[in-house]
């Protein structure tokens, strides 16, 4: 009986103690929960309301470089969104909760340049972004977050497989061109838009290098020459003859030989011939009828980007050797 009574007493005492302990710390935990940062320094002020159930989930920033708090440069919520005091603490006389100081979408009335400036605070010194403010995208009110998603572990525009789909959001013509028969391996994720274009820069046509030819040389260096016999347009701009985004004509040509070639060339002899597909085999030693089918003019003028031959013959200057 004594044991039983003692046990009951102990149980009651214990439960009472547990209840008190459980109740008091639970309030403390709730308070702690309010104060505790989840990802970034000082984010408790935001994450007390914002979590993964948001329209735009916020916690996934923890999966990214922006969520690596061991790096002293890692921003806080306020670094990008501003202190947003009235948003965090709605004024009593406000009918609706004011929006944060900076909102990174079109619904927040934050001008695109202000949105981008929040990113430039840290990223302006990156070699590719120094000239952002004079870039075409900047002048077209494209903000960084128009393309980049910060609160996600997978920013589609930074993945070469998914990047083109982001670019196609505005560049509709390119969506079609990359599906043409002659193209770069964009759909396969082997060449991405940013391999050729620095969208953060102000080079002509937003190229990664200072000119079109220098950009193309990063993969097609054999075209740089100089050659013993130069083909003038090759030295100036690959885009004179090629459409790099895709074409129905082999080798990304803008137009089919002989039409393309005759836009510059045409004199007495075979260069004036009409385009035509052969009705039968044509002598290999004749230029007649060999300017359209197959490789067109390039059936013979095979070194069209330049020739290094020193043969003592005029044919070498016409890119045939």
């Amino acid at each position: 009986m004594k044991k039983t009574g003692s046990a009951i007493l102990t149980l009651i005492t214990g439960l009472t103690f547990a209840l008190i302990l459980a109740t008091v710390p639970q309030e403390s935990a709730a308070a702690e929960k309010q104060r505790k940062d989840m990802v970034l320094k000082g984010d408790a002020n935001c994450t007390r309301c914002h979590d993964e159930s948001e329209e735009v989930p916020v916690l996934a920033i923890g999966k990214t470089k922006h969520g690596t708090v061991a790096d002293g440069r890692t921003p806080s919520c306020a670094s990008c969104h501003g202190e947003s005091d009235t948003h965090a603490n709605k004024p009593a006389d406000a009918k609706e909760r004011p929006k944060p100081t900076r909102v990174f979408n079109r619904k927040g009335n934050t001008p695109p340049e202000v949105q981008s400036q929040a990113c430039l605070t840290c990223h302006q010194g990156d070699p590719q972004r120094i000239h952002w403010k004079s870039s075409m995208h900047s002048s077209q009110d494209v903000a960084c977050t128009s393309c980049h998603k910060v609160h996600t572990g997978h920013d589609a525009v930074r993945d070469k497989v998914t990047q083109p789909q982001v670019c196609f959001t505005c560049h509709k013509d390119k969506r079609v061109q990359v599906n043409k028969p002659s193209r770069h391996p964009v759909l396969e994720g082997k060449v991405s838009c940013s391999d050729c274009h620095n969208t953060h820069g102000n080079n002509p046509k937003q190229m990664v290098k200072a000119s079109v030819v220098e950009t193309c040389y990063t993969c097609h260096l054999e075209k740089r020459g100089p050659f013993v016999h130069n083909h003038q347009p090759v030295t100036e701009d690959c885009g004179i003859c090629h459409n790099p985004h895709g074409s129905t004509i082999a080798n990304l040509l803008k137009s089919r030989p002989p039409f393309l070639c005759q836009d510059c060339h045409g004199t007495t002899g075979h260069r004036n011939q009409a385009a035509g597909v052969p009705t039968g085999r044509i002598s290999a030693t004749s230029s007649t009828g060999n300017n359209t089918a197959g490789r067109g003019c390039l059936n013979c003028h095979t070194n069209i980007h330049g020739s290094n031959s020193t043969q003592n013959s005029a044919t070498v200057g016409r890119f045939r050797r």
Partner: protein
Amino acid sequence: MIKSIAPSFRLTALAAALMLAFGPACADDAEVAALTTPDSSVSVGIGNWSKDRPQQGVYDGMRDSDTYGLFDFDIRKRDNATGTWLGLKARNLGLDNREIKGEWLRQGDIGGSIEYSRIVRDAPYTVNTGLQGIGTTTQTVGNVTPGAGRNVQLGTQRDRITATFVKHFGTNLKLNASFRNEEKEGTRHYGRGGSAEFLVEPVDSTTRLLETTLSYTSDKLQLSGGYFGSSYSTNVRLITSAGTIANGGSTTFFSSQPLDNMAHELFLNGGYNFSATTRGTFKLSYSVATQNERLPTADVPGLPAAGAPAYLDGKLETTLVEFGLTAKPLPKLSVLANLRYRDFSDKTPVQQFVFGGTPMFYTPFSYRNTVGKLEGTYRLNGGYSVLGGIEYNAQDRTTPTPAGVIRVPFVRQLDNASYRAQIRKSMSETVNGTLAYVHEDRKGKGYFASGEVEENLIHPLHIADRKRDKVRGMLDWLPTEKLNLQFAVESSTDKYGNGPNGNPLGIQKGTGSLFSADASYQIREDWQLRGWISQDQSQADEITIGNGGGTQRKVNMLRETGTSFGIGLNGKVSDKMKIGGDIEQFRNINKYNQTLSGGATQTAGTITTPDITSTLMKIKLFATYAMRKNTELRFDLVHEKWSTDDWTWNMFPTTGVTPWAYGSTTDGTTVIASPKQESTFVGVRLKYKF
């Protein structure tokens, strides 16, 4: 006994209290950790294409009807205490175009990566030929009856290794370095050059790129300077081809190839924030590219003329100087000013290489561009803004010397003025858009006639006087929370003048247009429907001289019309299952209308060029089933259908279309491009996330 009970009681009570107090918090921590820890995944599977797909499989490593292993992974780990990342990512490990990348980074301090990637390109046709020595630099043309040769598949592969390094020195200085080595091998469709005879270009080259950048960043000043070097080296310097075809009395041909070259560039970029709204920038760079290889044909007895140089001593210098300023002189006015000077100067010595007949010299081409740009944006109420801008590009083009070395007309000066006006609506929850108008005026000065009388009638398309008008509009409309509509319209017209010397021939007019509409609709929380349609059109009107010269003319009207659409649906069937699919079709029609006048005639043995219609349809379906929280099974079904009547590799005898064959009695090489291709892919993958 009491002693034995007491500790038990205390622990039990404490445990209950702790569980009540901290249990939920621990669960929260685990949930937060899962939501904030970098994702990793491994995907293993198998897939099969039912038929060969030469056109669609050019780059994806799955050209042939076969079964392929599908193996990808993406492992990303981060030590939160030190901010150290370790990544290992691989894609297409079971395919020819595989790639794998390893990365280590102590964020904000030091890091590096190394990546291997292969790009394959399989030519979309099969060659039937008697050519011997394919893949080597010594080839022999063999005559075969068309179709009686051996089938050859041409293609190249690039094996690329890229290494990067980054190191931060304090908070202001950062060093970046990257190095890329690419080995390119394979075979490429080529020509013997003497006439229309089939030859194969062997490819065996190495490209190397090295870039190092030291960056300094402070609140006001950013500087970035460094070195960029590039080099190309090849093991294919000359292709010698022999054969029985006589051409000019010679049966051996020597086809020169691009030779080793390299370039070194020094650059410095910078920006300075004069105030919160005013920023100045600059770019400086200087590069030298050289090509000093011994010219292989110089060592072929009897080929070069006596006295022809054996080295080109090629040297290209490029200088870039640029200054820019962006400012907001008024709260609602933003201005941008930029001045750019780029001098591409060919310093290669002008040497004579051909002495017989028409003398031929090295022909340097140099371009000096000075570009000024001024642009202003004024913000109006209601999210509207207007933009106006002008850009003037003055290009000095060095006149080739000595006279007579060029074959088409040239201009010494080419100026292009561009004017832009635009109105934009942004920052609206429902309607945003832009409407822009651009006018360009290009004019050449200092006309320089070529040595060819008839070619002097042509204004080459890239230097012809041109007036360009372009309109571009975009509208992004959210009529409801669930529906998003997007429209894009573009139209451009190029009108070409008669050239700087009244040249009447060449391209006359070019037009282009695009209409595109996109829609996405949120049917339910987990179901989305999307669709798009595009129509594009381009045309070029040309007048060129007829085959007989004189007043004979060819009037070409080249048209390309594309009609494409896509529709897709994806959604959640249950908590464990998602499904989706897309149907896309791309259709192009090319028309080659050529009218002959003034007595011009169709080339003997040919017919006028027929229209070409190409259609690609893709149906992609998928389903994923979550076997566990972190394990997913994915099924893919892809059906492709490609058809074309492209006549590039065809002949048109009265008996019906046949593969085009080289030569009338010799060579006999044919190229077989399959006009209809249809194939189905079925794949299954298991994806594990952790």
